[in-house]
């Protein structure tokens, strides 16, 4: 039996602690999404390194400030000294940060160089942003997978029912992050995306791939990714594009190469009929 107030209190705290810890232990809440390409992994690690450096400096600087707030207060009788410069420390705290920055810039430069190198792809897909959906077109390329999926066209639109958005139906598991026809790509192959837009700016963003590239109407930008394992990856438009900006998600399904070849063969149809026929495996 629960006797004292303290025991009751303890039980309540424990009862609250368990779900709170379970909530807090969900790592996906606190950090970047789990990376699934080499570039995204480098981005993840860079963020961790920079964050640790910032934390160390933060603790150092504000450790000094809080020490001063405790020990150098008037109420404990501290008398103000009147110094107001010290060339040595001023030079140190100007020069040292400079070297810390060089330490951060070096690995960042490596990642920028590899992230921007979209040369020699195995497969090229043109991505077009529309108000408000994504269009994908597998281009006739020159890489390993050339010819496999030539001309396959997909239009990818939000598939969450309006009733869920307006609260008339319970929200599904992938609320707002689901589409009718996802983009399908092979794992372990370098996929280059050529990104453009039809009307206003959009941005094609898949966090797990470390790809976020603005889609600029009238211009073509490129990016690339090589997915490390099969799965479904979800992202969203990341550049304000009008009223349905929040409702044009991106879903990419990565398949083993053989399955991808099967999918491509099934969907490789005359261009004119491509759009409605391109249904992806669920």
């Amino acid at each position, binding site marked *: 039996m629960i006797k004292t107030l303290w025991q009751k209190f303890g039980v309540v705290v424990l009862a609250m602690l368990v779900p709170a810890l379970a909530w807090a232990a969900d790592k996906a*809440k*606190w950090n*970047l*999404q789990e990376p699934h390409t080499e*570039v995204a992994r480098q981005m993840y690690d*860079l*963020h961790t390194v*920079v964050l640790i450096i910032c934390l160390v400096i*933060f603790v150092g*600087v*504000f450790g*000094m*400030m809080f020490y*001063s*707030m405790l020990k*150098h*207060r*008037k*109420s404990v009788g*501290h008398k*103000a000294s*009147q*110094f*107001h*410069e010290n060339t040595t*420390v001023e030079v140190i*705290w100007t020069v040292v940060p400079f070297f810390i*920055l060089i330490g*951060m810039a070096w690995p*960042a*430069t490596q990642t*920028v*160089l590899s*992230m921007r190198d979209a040369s020699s792809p195995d497969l090229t897909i043109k991505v077009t942003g529309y108000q408000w959906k994504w269009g994908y077109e597998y281009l006739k390329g020159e890489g390993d997978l050339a010819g496999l999926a030539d001309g396959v066209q997909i239009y990818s639109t939000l598939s969450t029912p309006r009733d869920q*958005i307006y*609260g008339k139906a319970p*929200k599904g598991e*992938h*609320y707002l992050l689901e589409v009718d026809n996802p983009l399908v790509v092979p794992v372990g192959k370098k996929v280059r995306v050529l990104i453009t837009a039809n*009307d*206003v*700016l959009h*941005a094609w*963003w898949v*966090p797990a791939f*470390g*790809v*976020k590239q*603005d889609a*600029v*109407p*009238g211009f073509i930008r490129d990016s690339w990714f090589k997915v490390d394992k099969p799965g479904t990856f979800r992202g*969203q*438009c990341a*550049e*304000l594009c*009008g*009223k349905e*900006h*929040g409702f044009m998600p991106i879903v990419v399904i990565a398949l083993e190469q053989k399955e991808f070849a099967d999918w491509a063969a099934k969907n490789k149809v005359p261009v004119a009929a491509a759009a409605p026929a391109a249904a992806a495996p669920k």
Partner: protein
Amino acid sequence: MSAVIGHDHDHAHGHDHHPSGLMRWVKTTNHKDIGTMYLWFSFVMFLVGGFMAMVIRAELFVPGLQVVNPEVFNQMTTLHGLIMVFGAIMPAFVGFANWLIPMQIGAPDMAFPRMNNWSFWLLPPAATLLVLSLFVPGGAPGVGWTLYAPLSIQQGMGMDLTIFAVHILGMSSIMGSINIVTTVLNLRAPGMTLMKMPLFVWTWLITAYLLIAVMPVLAGAVTMVLTDRHFGTHFFNAAGGGDPVLFQHIFWFFGHPEVYIIAIPAFGVVSQVIPAFSRKPLFGYTSMVYAVASIAILSFLVWAHHMYTAGLPTTAQLYYMYATMLIAVPTGVKVFNWVATMWKGSLTFETPMLFALGFLFLFTLGGFTGLVLSVTPVDIQLHDTYYVVAHFHYVMVAGALFSAFAGVYFWLPKWTGNMYNETLGKWHFWLSFIFFNMIFFVQHFLGLAGMPRRIPDYSPQFTDFNMISSIGAFGFGLSQLLFLYIVLKTIRSGEKSPEKPWEGADSLEWTHLPTPAPYHTFETPPVVK
């Protein structure tokens, strides 16, 4: 000739019979009156923009669309940004400049008092246009405060009202800046050399140059949008040989210095407050001046770090990353100097000091997330997410707004002759501090986990942090009504302030002028040793 002289003579006599009632404020050329009007105007705009933030946070409280439709949501984010930047924060610091620069350099008034009146009175029409745009067909622009083309070209006539409002605001800022530069360079009292000026005056001198340099650029950008919309040009239309990304380059060439236009006067206020409550001179005055100047110069060289995902050449991405990281050096110098100012001081923690310390702590946090964002590959993941929203609110709210609060509490006795209620002031600080972090700290996690900004609805995985953020926002909004109450109470029935309420304050307005400061001050310049 004699007639003219006679007129001047009469005018000098009639000096004290200035109009009363409403006409006093419409016609005033007095820097203190104009400063007061700037401050009240900015507070009204702060409430209007804050109300829009409440609408945004109410919609985002849970997933789904409940409160407003997506069009109105986008209009709210746009107007919230424009009103807070151009209507609330910038005029607040111009208000401080008007009140304090003449008193701190020993000048009788601003150099161009009539232009000063005009700079202020341009603001209410501009703000009216912005708010009016909500009620025209098509509503206000739903494009974000950055007004990116081509989306801004698609908008209804609300966009034209906004463009006109931006033009007027720009004119006001440019005139205000010319006034400040001229006053600081020409009206200093004998012996007040540049390197003896209080740091607040220095920060405004540098800010005024920034404003003169970049406001015309913004005017250019929105004018190009206007001619693209109505007069057949194709600056931002690829089909006509233009480029949408050109808008971003022009906008951010204005927009990045703009960030410092907001932050640098805040540095100035904090640099007055921290030494006063440490009872110790500012550490590294000279290096502070150089640090502010280098931040201002660097701010012109880093604009495309807002555009890492726009598809810049690789070399440009690298250059902008290196240049942006460099800003950490002078910013670090400033933070170290403030902490060193407190070191071995004799500290007390009245409300202005609390807000200044809140500024120091949270602005630095915002500086660190800025450093995280400067790293191009990391920014690719975080660009246009809630991480960026958190970052710039740490700089704008905990930075600029907290420093403005510090300034109001610090100078309120000098302005009104009355002392604010210290207990209520401390309540205001702690409520603001806690609710601020509740709103924005969790937004870092939302951004990392992948929630884009400017969306009216989101995937349920983001619900818990959005709820915390919204509750914080309502609390923060209500706490600001307490601030209004404190200020009104001080003006109407506050206790009489001592002549020099702050032991450690050492600029001219404290050492050479009575409290409250009389309507006309330093008609004969003081001699500064």
